[in-house]
C-alpha cells in the first residue's frame, strides 16, 4: 500500500503541530489506558493487537506486535488474539447475512 510510510510511525507526535493541547490530552489518555490496572499490560497489549487487526491499521499492527513481545506474549498467544479479532469480524459479516435474507424475504413471494 504505497500511501503508508513505515517511518511515519516514529513521526506520530508531529500531529501535535497545529493543536498541541489536543494531542497532549490524547497522549495522557492513551498512556493511562495502557498502565497495569484491572487488566495487565500484557492483556491490554493483546487487546491492542486484536483491535489493530480488526481496524487493519499497519501502524498499530507494527506497534502492538512489538508491545506484545515486550510484554512477554509469545506468537501462539498473539496468533490466538488475531484469530479472535478475525473471527469476530467474520461473525459480524456473517450475521449481516440475515439482513440480506430479510431483504430478500420482504420482496419475495
Amino acid at each position: 500500500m504505497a500511501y503508508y510510510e513505515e517511518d511515519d510511525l516514529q513521526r506520530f507526535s508531529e500531529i501535535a503541530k497545529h493543536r498541541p493541547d489536543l494531542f497532549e490530552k490524547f497522549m495522557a489518555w492513551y498512556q493511562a489506558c495502557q498502565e497495569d490496572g484491572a487488566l495487565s499490560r500484557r492483556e491490554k497489549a493483546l487487546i491492542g493487537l486484536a483491535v489493530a487487526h480488526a481496524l487493519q491499521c499497519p501502524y498499530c499492527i507494527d506497534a502492538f506486535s512489538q508491545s506484545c513481545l515486550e510484554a512477554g506474549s509469545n506468537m501462539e498467544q498473539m496468533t490466538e488474539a488475531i484469530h479472535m479479532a478475525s473471527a469476530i469480524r467474520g461473525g459480524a459479516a456473517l450475521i449481516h447475512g440475515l439482513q440480506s435474507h430479510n431483504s430478500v424475504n420482504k420482496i419475495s413471494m
Partner: protein
Amino acid sequence: MSIALPVIQTEFAVKASVDFDQKLATCGIELRASRVDTLQINVGKLCNQACKHCHVDAGPARTEIMKRETAQQVIDAIRKFRITTVDITGGAPELNPSFRYLVRESRRIGSNVIVRHNLTVMFEPGQQDLSQFFREHAVEVVCSLPYFLEQQTDAQRGRGVFEKSIAALRRLNAAGYGIENTGLVLNLVYNPVGAFLPPAQESIEADFKRELMNRFGISFNRLFTITNMPIKRFLDYLRRSGNEERYMRKLVAAFNPATIDGLMCRNLVSVDWTGRLYDCDFNQMLELSVAPELPQKIADFDPEAFARRRIMTGSHCFGCTAGAGSSCGGAIREPNA
C-alpha cells in the same frame, strides 16, 4: 516514561545516535563506580554454541582462551583482595582447561562463585560430572534459556538446543539445584529473541516457573531479564535485518536515569582472557579498556584505585539503562519505579 507506549514517543523524532555521556550530563549524572565487590572473569571465546545474539561472538572455532598463567594471576588478585564474588563467563567457560582450577581456588579463598552456564555444554566430552562439580563447590549457576518453548530457544541458540537445555535443567534439578531448601541456586537468563526489549522480569519469571514446571517438571530460583546489546553478533543481526536504527532509537527513547545506581559497572571489574581489565563484559568485547589512568592488567589490579573510578562508556550503554535496566543480575528496577 515512554516505555509504556508502543512506539509513539512524546518527543518529536527520537534520534538513534545520542552520546551516552551527554545524556548523563543532561540528567546531571556522573557515572562512577561505587565499590568493587565482583570480579567477572571472561575466560575466552570458545563455546560449543554460536548463538545469534552473542555479544562475544563466541563459537566452537574460537581459540582465544585464558592460559593457566593468567588464571593464576586472577586467583592471586582474588586472594590478595578478598574479592566477595567471582563471576565466571565466556564462551562456555567450562571448556577452558583452567575453569575448574578457578572455581576450586576461588571457593577455597571463600569467594562466592557464579558460573554463566549455557546448559548444553553439560553434554560435551569430559563434562558429564558438571552438575556434581557445581554442587560440590556450591557454585551459583546462571543458565541461558531465552524461552520456555522450543521454537524461540532454537531460533536464537541453534537447532536442538532447547531439548538439550531441558535435559540439562533436569540434571541440575536432580543434583538439588533450584530445589527448595537445598541452598543450591539455579537462576535462568531470558534474552529477547529479536530486536525488542525484555518484558517485566517478575511477570515473565512467573510464566517460566509455571510453564517449565507444568511442561517439564523443572524448577528454578530466579529469572533474570537481560537486554540484547548492540555488539558483535547481535549488532550484525540488527544490521542484516534492517533493525539497527530502530533498535537504537528504542534504547535511547527508553533511557531511564533511575537505573544508573544499579548498573553492574558500578560494583564489578571485568577481566579478559589475556588479563586485561574493563568496566564490564560489553566494554571488553568492544576493547574499551578501563580509564587510562588506572592499572590495565589483573597483575596490577588494586581495588582502592578502582573503587571510585570513572566508567568508560559508549552508545551500547543505552542497552543497560533502557526501561527497567539490565545487568548481569537482570532488571535493575521495574519500568515505572
